[in-house]
């Protein structure tokens, strides 16, 4: 048994992806089978094994995926960002409102989404990197600011992005084009870019190394503050990206919401093997983690449970992953 496991671990593909990631993919498949069997039993008349279910899970996975990719950079530096969900909503609200109220062209609105996200990232990053504020409290404060700003700007109205036969709906093609889940392609492309940035550029190298040992990197003559802030900016910009895919899939955004997505994005990261202590990050793991979160929420709904189960489970997942990470690090010391 153990031998077989070792043999499996030494397969080339397994080695390339990392054993944990392969296990996670196994988890996805298991979850899918489980939901397919359980949902008709628990909730009569549902059939989980439908393409529409899968597509709906994918829709959820896209924006969670972008959020999780962003926060992976921040967690890699040993910090945390609790503001991404509300920041995503805030940028969707403000740019959507501008489009409706002031007739901004669509392309400008999309760019605005990313920019607003990046601005939030810059502010948060500046507080953390240059003023040395704890990132959790800073980002929680910014979360409130993002929520508030969204509702102040829109006068607490729900904002709908164009849909159906309305003009200017081409941004929805990002999510799905003639039945093809284009969102998946975008997510994979962005994930690949993220992986390249993290593993093959100076920024990524510094971000990971300063998460592992900030003082050693500083004493190597690197201005760590700049790179620490950059991680937050990347995170914010990707939250803006997530906003595009959120409205592409669901079109309407409500002010004052979005903080549950933080939790799910963070859960996706830690499940994927990114360590809350910093210095260790896996983009592939994050993407798989995001899809686990998405599938979980689809499954929970299909089985007729309320979304609250998802919230409670997310908490347990983060707790479990962090305890496991803490204990394993303690053992290796």
């Amino acid at each position: 048994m153990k031998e077989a496991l070792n043999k499996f671990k030494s397969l080339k593909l397994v080695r390339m992806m990392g054993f944990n990631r392969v296990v996670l993919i196994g988890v996805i498949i298991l979850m899918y089978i489980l939901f397919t069997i359980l949902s008709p039993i628990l909730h009569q008349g549902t059939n989980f094994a439908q393409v529409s279910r899968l597509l709906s899970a994918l829709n959820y996975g896209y924006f969670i995926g972008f959020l999780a990719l962003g926060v992976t950079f921040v967690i890699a530096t040993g910090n945390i960002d609790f503001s991404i969900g509300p920041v995503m909503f805030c940028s969707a609200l403000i740019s959507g409102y501008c489009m409706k109220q002031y007739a901004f062209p669509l392309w400008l609105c999309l760019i605005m989404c990313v920019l607003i996200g990046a601005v939030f990232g810059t502010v948060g990053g500046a507080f953390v990197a240059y003023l040395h504020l704890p990132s959790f409290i800073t980002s929680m404060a910014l979360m409130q600011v993002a929520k508030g700003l969204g509702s102040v700007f829109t006068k607490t109205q729900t904002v709908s992005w164009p849909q159906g036969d309305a003009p200017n709906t081409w941004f929805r093609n990002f999510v799905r084009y003639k039945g093809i889940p284009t969102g998946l392609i975008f997510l994979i492309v962005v994930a690949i870019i993220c992986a390249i940035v993290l593993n093959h550029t100076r920024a990524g190298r510094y971000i990971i190394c300063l998460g592992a040992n900030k003082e050693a990197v500083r004493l190597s003559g690197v201005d760590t503050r700049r790179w620490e802030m950059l991680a937050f900016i990347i995170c914010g910009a990707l939250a803006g990206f997530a906003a595009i895919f959120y409205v592409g899939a669901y079109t309407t955004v409500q002010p004052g919401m979005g903080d549950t997505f933080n939790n799910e994005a963070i859960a996706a990261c830690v499940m994927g093997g990114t360590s809350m202590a910093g210095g260790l990050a896996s983009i592939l793991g994050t993407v798989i983690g995001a899809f686990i979160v998405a599938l979980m929420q689809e499954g929970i709904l299909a089985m007729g449970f309320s979304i609250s189960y998802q919230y409670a489970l997310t908490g347990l997942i983060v707790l479990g992953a962090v305890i496991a990470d803490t204990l394993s690090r303690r053992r290796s010391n």
Partner: protein
Amino acid sequence: MPEVILTMKGIDKSFPGVHALDHVDFEVRKGEVHALMGENGAGKSTLMKVLTGIYTKDSGTITYEGREVTFANPREAQQAGIVIVHQELNMMGHLTVAQNIFIGREPKKGIRIDDNAMNVEATKLFKQLGIEIDPKTTMSELTVAKQQMCEIAKAISHDAKVIIFDEPTAALTDTEIEQLFVIIRDLRAKGYGIVYISHRMDEIKKITDRVSVMRDGQYIGTLITEDCTKEDIINMMVGRVIYEDPKTQSQCPPDAPVVLKVEHLNAGKMVQDVSFELKKGEILGFAGLVGAGRTETCRALFGADPKQGGDIYIEGKKVEIHSPKDAVEHGLSYLSEDRKRYGIVLKKSITENSTLATLKEYTKGLFIDRPKEEKVTQRYVDELRTKTPGIDQLVMNLSGGNQQKVVIAKWLVNDAKIMIFDEPTRGIDVGAKQEIYELMGRLVKEGKSIIMISSEMTEILRMSDRILVMCEGKKTGELDIAEATQENIMNLATRDIDMREGDK
């Protein structure tokens, strides 16, 4: 002669690779102040840690008040009456003096802590010691000297019989030292046994009754303070061991250009008006005892800590260094004494660590040039003979010596002109030590200049071309290797008395 209260006999203690205590004997009598002296790493602290239950001994006996004892932890020792007054104080700065003294055993009145009773008790204690401290003051508002006196009061309130002072005067002013001595003399008169660890020769002469000297984990001997001279003690401390091939004369040509000039560097208490020059191809040894301010000087020079003043010239040009980034851009490099915290990123590979300081040069367009990076890493792994299965190996899996080589490689890749080696061979086994020495020799031949901080006399005498000695944040002397001996280095490293008197 007063009765012996504490006897340690044949104490032996080994750590992996180090024989820290080699059958050491030590005794304390009632009503005496017994100095414990020795170079850095001679085993004084280890001995005291064995006594107070922080370490467990491998063999030997401790007899205390006529009974053989072993303490499992500091608390047991404390309850038995053996207390250390630490160099770094073990105080809770946010609580008041009385609250600190009685922490863990507060008198109570119902559920309420009886703070009044505590304050009264504390006042009594201070009266007994002849100190004036308001027990209601918050601890962090007191000076270090007063905090220390509170620690003494705490020790006495624990019914201590043996009090160990670990370099108690390191952070005190002259008047404060005088006050401390009054208290210590008073304690002696009351029959306490006192162990006094210090490097300050004048204090030893002033306050102690006997001096025991340790060297390299061994007990050398005990002298009656009155009957001995400073030279006697120093001779015992440095011994007559023949060190392997010490340098007899400087390898650096006298007309070599000055690459680094530091003038009037000031940074906090530990770096006071330090000036020196470093020539091309020279190894400048920084000697001194632990806490002399050598590391602080180099960190301030490197921009790692803020400095209050001082001019730095590199190759004759004045430069501004405010951060390690500036320093690295000017060709400086720093190998910390604490590798794991300041030198390397343990969880990353040799390659990633090697190019950490120079990543910009190994970036092509947007991307890191992996082949180039790996090539240079491999080159230095070969050149420095780093023992590793491959350059992708995580640094945490390497031995201390090889980790040090990775740090050196990082700076060689950067082509640093001036290298600061802070305790380059700490925690490294003998074979690897030799390699590091050879490497340093090679580096200066190639035209690099090295500042080497070392607390090992052997290392200083063997490697340096010139030796700068520091003591208590000040430069106390500079010796050419030809004139340097262990004795005169030790003299400079402990000569604070004359210096302080000279200041007046």
